[in-house]
């Protein structure tokens, strides 16, 4: 049997970490991701099943942390669910058996690249990258926005920490955009 080595979104064996001034950008390869969308007229059934399975379904534009499942809102009656990759690599199958036919579930892990941003103040960086008013948004805010030409999800975990999900095939471009903005700030 072939012995295959998994590669990160940036094409390397190990997750990449980049630092510039006070900023640290860490690629996250330990997150499993799936989308959960309520089927037509089945929202009540999904809410019940999700509660039982411990899958949070937060309000619009918010992220809710939990163990093992965290989730953020992406569209009306649709969420992205995060879980630790080590224990939930088959997140789509796990959610399907937990939520039954109330929801349509799609595996998303390998469609995205996740970057965690950390700096004492992320506002000057993010105001150069996107049109989200980061300081004005509450912790736990999650939104889709544009960085350069890329549609990304931005999750505010605090004034000093944020996570970005961008399209995996453009991982290098997204990192380049973040680094370029960082160089103009610091």
């Amino acid at each position, binding site marked *: 049997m072939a012995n295959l080595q998994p590669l990160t979104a940036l094409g390397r064996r190990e997750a990449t970490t980049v630092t510039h001034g006070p900023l640290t950008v860490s690629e996250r390869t330990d997150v499993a991701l799936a989308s959960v969308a309520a089927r037509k007229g089945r929202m009540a059934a999904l809410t019940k099943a999700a509660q039982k399975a411990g899958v949070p379904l937060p309000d*619009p*534009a918010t992220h809710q942390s939990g163990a093992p499942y965290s989730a953020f*809102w*992406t*569209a*009306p009656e649709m969420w992205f669910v995060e879980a630790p990759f080590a224990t939930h690599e088959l997140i789509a199958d796990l959610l399907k058996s937990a939520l039954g036919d109330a929801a349509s579930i799609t595996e998303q892990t390998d469609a995205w690249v996740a970057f965690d941003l950390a700096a004492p103040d992320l506002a000057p960086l993010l105001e150069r990258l996107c*049109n989200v008013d980061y300081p004005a948004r509450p912790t736990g805010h999650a*939104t*889709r*926005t*544009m960085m350069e030409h890329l*549609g990304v999800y931005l999750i505010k975990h605090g004034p000093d920490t944020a996570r970005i999900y961008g399209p995996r095939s453009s991982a290098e471009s997204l990192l380049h955009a973040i680094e370029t903005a960082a160089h103009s700030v610091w």
Partner: protein
Amino acid sequence: MIIHHPILGPRDAQEFVYLGDASLIDRPDGMTAGVEVFHDYLYNRTNPAGEHQELWYHEQGDRSWLVVTRNTVTHEITKVELARDVARSRGRTK
């Protein structure tokens, strides 16, 4: 221009894509309504100088379709609704 998204609040218009007249929601039944009615639906638009209902797509956001009531003379936006709710209020099931 700022569009007040009914779920997400004020959003910059650059996040949206404009489709056009919201009468596109009222598609006649092509099998029974007749050619003239369907032709009107497909090609004819009123072009009012004033209040206009139009479809906008939140492309760089939650990808919802909105019906925006906008004054084409002043660009004032008086009402923003989810297209889904508008369609349902007109008796559509999808």
